[in-house]
């Protein structure tokens, strides 16, 4: 197993390096100029000095290596320093990657935004999984029943209707049409400064999370329930199920212990593979409900041509994808011994 994990890990590093290079290249080849937004009154020679201070005159490969050093060595060390107080090397003089827009370190900006995204996105994924698994199991067990037909139709709607439309629709129903004093009225703007101190504020927090979580949960549940159903159907027709029934096990045991456990193997990996995608999908949901998470930070960065911020965030999304691919592979290997020996 260790061998298998190590082999996958070896594969991950070149992939990440290549992706980082691609992202760097796209930003580098772009015709836009980071000093373009500065006032026109700045004389050309000062502008040249600013460009030099930003390191724009160095050759491309040199800047790429510098960026790698910054991203893979300096920033993690800075994080250690901040979180645990460990000081490795030159703590105070070490470079920080700073945002063009706010002049504060990019990593701090991201750390500041992370909890909101994790709360909303994480909660929606959990809710989505909790809805999807029973639906998938029942629709497979009662294939072609009315429940299965309805589930299929709703799942089709779930991944056909884009999240920005479901979100907007929910806002229209729950914030615009619903009277303000109704129990079902929900705020359409997410208030990040809100702190949970007592029961009342906890209820408010739940209410403001309800809509973004519903939107993303519907989308995730649609996909996962289909996988669950297909995987259950694959297993239900297998010989070991007939054996289990033949030796007189209760139907509940057959279904929930024998079939469900085996059907979960591919579903678990699909769930792991889906995690980075929902971070991407959350970009839109965060924009609709004005949650100031990572997605919104990316949009702000893009609108202001904040190259370091955009670069770091995009690469972070890529790291998440590669990481969860690895997690999915390792999980599959752990759960299904046949996979390890390829």
């Amino acid at each position, binding site marked *: 197993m260790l061998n298998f994990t190590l082999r996958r890990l070896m594969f991950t590093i070149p992939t990440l390096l290549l992706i980082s290079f691609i992202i760097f290249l796209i930003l580098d080849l772009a*015709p836009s100029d980071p000093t373009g937004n500065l006032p026109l009154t700045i004389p050309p020679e000062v502008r040249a000095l600013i460009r030099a201070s930003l390191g724009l005159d160095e050759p491309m490969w040199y800047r790429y290596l510098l960026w790698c050093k910054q991203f893979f060595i300096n920033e993690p060390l800075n994080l250690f320093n901040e979180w645990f107080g460990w000081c490795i090397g030159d703590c105070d003089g070490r470079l920080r990657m700073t945002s063009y827009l706010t002049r504060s370190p990019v990593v701090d900006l991201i750390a500041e935004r992370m909890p909101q995204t994790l709360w909303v996105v994480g909660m929606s994924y959990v809710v989505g999984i909790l809805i999807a698994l029973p639906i998938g199991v029942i629709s497979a067990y009662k294939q072609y029943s009315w429940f299965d037909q309805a589930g299929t139709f709703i799942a089709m709607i779930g991944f056909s209707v*884009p999240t*920005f439309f479901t979100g907007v629709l929910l806002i229209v129903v729950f914030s615009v049409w619903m009277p303000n004093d109704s129990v079902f009225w929900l705020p359409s703007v997410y208030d990040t400064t809100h702190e949970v101190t007592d029961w009342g504020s906890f209820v408010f927090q739940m209410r403001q999370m309800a809509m973004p979580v519903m939107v993303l949960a519907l989308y995730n549940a649609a996909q996962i329930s289909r996988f669950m159903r297909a995987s259950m159907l694959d297993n239900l027709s297998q010989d070991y199920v007939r054996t289990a029934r033949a030796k007189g096990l209760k139907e509940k045991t057959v279904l929930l212990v024998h079939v469900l456990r085996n059907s979960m193997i591919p579903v678990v990996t699909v769930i792991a593979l889906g995690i*980075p995608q929902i971070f991407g999908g959350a970009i839109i949901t965060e924009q609709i409900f004005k949650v100031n998470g990572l997605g919104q930070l990316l949009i702000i960065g893009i609108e202001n041509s904040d190259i370091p911020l955009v670069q770091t965030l995009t690469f972070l999304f890529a790291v998440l994808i590669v990481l969860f691919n690895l997690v999915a592979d390792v999980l599959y290997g752990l759960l299904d011994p046949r996979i390890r020996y390829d």
Partner: protein
Amino acid sequence: MTDATLEDDRKYRSLWGDVWRQFRSHRGAMIGSFVFIGILLAVAIGPYLWGLDPNYADVRNRNQGMSWAHPFGTDQLGHDMLAQVLQGGRISIAVGLTAMALSLFLGTFIGVLAGYFKRLDGVLMRGTDLFLALPILPLLLVIIMLFRDTLRGMFGPETGIFILIVFIIGITSWMQTARIVRGDVLALKEREFILAANSIGTPSKRVISRHIMPNILSPIMVSATLGIATAIITESSLSFLGLGFPSDFPTWGRLLFDGTQRISQAPSRVIWPGLAISLTVLSVNFIGDGLRDALDPRIRGR
């Protein structure tokens, strides 16, 4: 004479006839086809029938609700929403179809090369894996931000952004098609008719075009329907984030984006374009579902 009657009794069944029969028995797919054809017709000839100019600002009649003169209402500048939705649909569907064609071409090309030529397989599939690991939406946003102005300068504001959006959606959505096509080609290559074609000295180019391509048509057709759906959703998402087409060149996503800013005064403005996107994608997905069943010989026999 008797021979002829015998011939008539035996009903002639072709492959595509069978596919069509199976497709027709899939209720969702049939409804989907009618809806999709309806939407296509509406956006193709609708703007001629509905004579109002989508960009004519009738300032006296702005922010109106539904009426006979303006069935979908008007926006804050007095543009007729029905005309805008019809016009926007043209662009959204045009983007969907062209981006799908591009991604299908790339996917099939790479898939066939990787499946047929063993030497290229490793390199091309590693490349595909790499593309699959890219964060697509953030990258699309970054590319649009960086290259928008240059392309606008080169091809004009509308064509420039159209080319950019079609191109980037096309080159970031071919991977699934390539994988499926490669798998099918690998399986086909071992079949006897390919061996026969090779043994009489048919050049690779002709083996691919005469023997391989017709046999991988069904997965390609299914990918095509799914490709339209994803391309339309991606384009609308980009427009929804304000990074797609400009306001005076409306697409469904852009109309939705403009509508959300006045959502509390005029909720209907977000409903119509959103409904149009959802109906199109839903119908295309149902068509894809039906096609998959119809083209799968294991299901078709039933």
